[in-house]
């Protein structure tokens, strides 16, 4: 399904583990930062200033370029009320947009339901990576999860092509005939057919793509390259999801975080360049989020779970700059001991991308009216 009027597409990147926002967008002239961070700290010669107060971690140099080009919005102090510092509850809340109760429907799955009311295109929502994140999961809303584009689908490990074809036929027969054998078997049958349908349509993606961009050889670059390839194939995908893991830097932040910053910023930069090269840069916006920020003080080798963090938006249609406010670093303003207090509710940012970018009604998804920002250029 190639469309001519190029529908707007959202790419969500989850930084798993709780990214240290203070060491990503660094308050490099703030005394409280240097008072609190003794070891896990960026010196003033390790940052790339964007104004007199804030600077980008020099390991994320590509972000500085994108920021200077006006294509990066920094959402400062994003969070949710009453953070309990748990990864799991934190991710739950971000995935379902329900901080007050345990939600069962993913926020992006609900957006897919609005975008594709008949459930006709199993590729309207695509996760690139293993499993299906809760954010994408809503019962009865077909979405696709692609672990590896080259080997996507079932029976992908069967050695010979001719045998594989027969295996797929058998699989299709078995899953197709589950219809009529009870609601649960039917549901599983339909899910299997959706996997096949997605695989069929994705099969041609790899061969139709060419680019001069050379992505790095790591997970996030590989995943964003897959996103680019699927997007450029014009299969009607409106929401992509992918994950960059390793941000739970309790102990080895000095070794781990610089590499994460390098890999993430290079991957996003290559991805944006790739889209531009294919004249598709205006159709795509990226939202980067993490479940929480980290504690004000370091623990000598890393940082422990905190609350207020930061999110980022990237894209040609983004009006770059700083949004909301950087959380106050003054000890008197800390909460739960030494957490940064969030300054904007994440549901307002969800509302922003849902309504202003995807054209989806946000209220039923975030369940309320939350302060939005205006990060989109006309």
């Amino acid at each position, binding site marked *: 399904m190639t469309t001519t009027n190029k529908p707007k597409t959202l790419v969500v990147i989850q930084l*798993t*583990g709780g990214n240290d926002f203070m060491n990503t967008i660094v308050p490099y002239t703030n005394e409280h930062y240097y008072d609190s961070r003794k070891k896990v700290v960026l010196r003033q010669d390790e940052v790339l200033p964007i104004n007199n107060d804030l600077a980008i971690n020099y390991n994320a140099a590509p972000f500085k370029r994108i920021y200077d080009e006006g294509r990066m919005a920094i959402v400062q102090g994003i969070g949710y009320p009453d953070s*309990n510092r*748990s*990864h*799991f*509850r934190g991710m*739950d809340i971000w995935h379902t947009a329900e901080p007050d109760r*345990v939600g*069962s429907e993913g926020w992006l799955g609900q957006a897919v339901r609005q975008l594709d009311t008949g459930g006709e295109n*199993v590729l309207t929502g695509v*996760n690139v990576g*293993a*499993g*299906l994140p809760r954010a994408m*999961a809503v*019962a009865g809303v*077909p*979405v*696709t*999860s692609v*672990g590896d584009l080259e080997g996507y*689908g*079932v*029976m*992908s*490990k*069967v*050695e*010979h092509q*001719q*045998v594989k074809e*027969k*295996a797929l*036929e*058998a*699989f299709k*027969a*078995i*899953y197709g*005939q*589950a219809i009529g*054998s*009870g*609601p*649960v*078997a039917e*549901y*599983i*049958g339909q*899910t*299997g057919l*959706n*996997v096949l349908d*997605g695989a069929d349509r994705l099969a041609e993606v790899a061969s139709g793509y060419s680019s001069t961009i050379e992505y790095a050889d790591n997970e996030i670059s590989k995943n964003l390259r897959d996103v680019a390839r699927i997007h450029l194939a014009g299969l009607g995908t409106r929401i992509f999801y992918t*994950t960059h*893991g*390793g941000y*739970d830097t309790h102990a080895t932040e000095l070794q781990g975080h610089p590499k994460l910053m390098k890999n993430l910023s290079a991957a996003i930069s290559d991805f944006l360049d790739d889209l531009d090269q294919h004249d598709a840069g205006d159709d795509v916006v990226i939202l980067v989020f993490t479940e929480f920020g980290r504690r004000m003080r370091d623990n000598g080798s890393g940082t422990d779970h905190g609350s207020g963090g930061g999110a980022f938006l990237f894209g040609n249609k983004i009006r770059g700059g700083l949004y909301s406010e950087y959380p106050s670093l003054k000890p008197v303003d800390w909460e739960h001991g030494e957490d940064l207090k969030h300054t904007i509710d994440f549901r307002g940012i969800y509302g922003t991308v849902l309504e202003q970018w995807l054209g989806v009604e946000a209220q039923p998804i975030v369940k309320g009216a939350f302060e939005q920002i205006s990060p989109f250029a006309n």
Partner: protein
Amino acid sequence: MKSERALVAHLMRRAAFGATPTELDYLTEHKTYEDIVEDLINPEKFEELDRSYLDRYYGGEQVSAQVAKWLFRMINTPRPLEEKMSLFLHHIFPVAWGKSEHTHSIVVEIEMFRKIGLSSFKNILFELSKDPAMIFWLDNNENHKDEINENYGRELLELFSMGVGNYTENDIKNASRAFTGWTFRQPLSLYPFGHYPAVFEYLPEDHDNNEKEFLGHKGNFNGEDIINIIVRQPATAKFVSRHLYNFFVEDETQVPSWATEAPKNEDAINELAGVFMESSGDMKSVLRVLFNSDFFKESMKLPKVKSPTELVAGVLKQTGEFNKPKPGIHVFANTTLNGSATDGTMSIMGQMLMNPPTVEGWHTGHEWINSGTLSERISFVEDQFSDESKPGIREIISRIGSLENDPAAIIDQCLDLMGGINVSESTYEALVAYTQELQGFTGKEISEGTGIHNVLQMVASTVDYQFA
């Protein structure tokens, strides 16, 4: 033959983690169905696995190593219902290391489940209420005589025993008061000794000694008195029976809807609840009736979707790759939230053991299945059944013989040898047709890599195989 093979296979899938062909041969030849039920519900008749041996292979604090050890037990234990009941209690009393003092506390809790799963429900609730992991998870260490924290008291009634609609807010408050002073302490300081399991501690000075009113009873109740009252309630008998039915017989709706939706089989629940009341909540008595009942024997055709744990343990048991302790089983249990670079199979399928998502536990039944988890299930069985040198697969192939045999006979044997699997007529026909196609590949290059393992992969990939 003393017992019917298909029925024994069904029992072993539900009450255990499946059975190998050799085990099915032995059981059907030497034991009646009723004998096998007795063996299952009386695990003390069989020697347990050598703990020190297991600890040497699967030690350490990483939760993936601890889940690996649990998986190994499920696959190899001579007391499978003991493990299945630990899993059952883990489903209904879900405590996660995501909110725990350390992984040890969950490991100790599961060990406790292993010991008490087949005792009385009263004993189960008593041990649960003294469990440091549970106390920390539901904040009972924050439940003080002058500052009540109702978290444990509420879930004890709502999720762990009676279900919504059978008690008042006042009952919750009074139950919580009765559990004041029930806390835990660390036996040794964290530094420099490292993590040691915490121990239960009762602090009389922090216990509310005033009169309490609970479910129509009045007295200066302590936690144990509350449990005594709870386990005598018909609502508890029905709620626990419904949990057992949901776990062993047929998928029910998700637990939060039980207050408003009738059970799938009301008669069965009433029968089990009756035994529960008569036996004062003796789990062995209830399970004896359950496994010997007609509704259980006829439940082969009822939908009961395998949990990721049941699928993974069941497949690993069949392939025999881990029939002796060896490294590698932890890869199924890895999680990126525990510092691993990649998620393991069970995490991708939606069940991180020892780390359930919330106090409600996992949503089960068809909610285990979506396009991501289904792809992972199929990719997992493709991997596991690809290597013909694994002992379990070698055994199956040697019994079947050659791919050149009659295709229907091959499928009959595969279904039997993979644990007495039931498939629909249309699945059966598709499997026979696929086998015929495989027989058609006569060229040397293809036929060398093609064999019975392709059939095993397909059987394990069917819709039907997703059901226990």
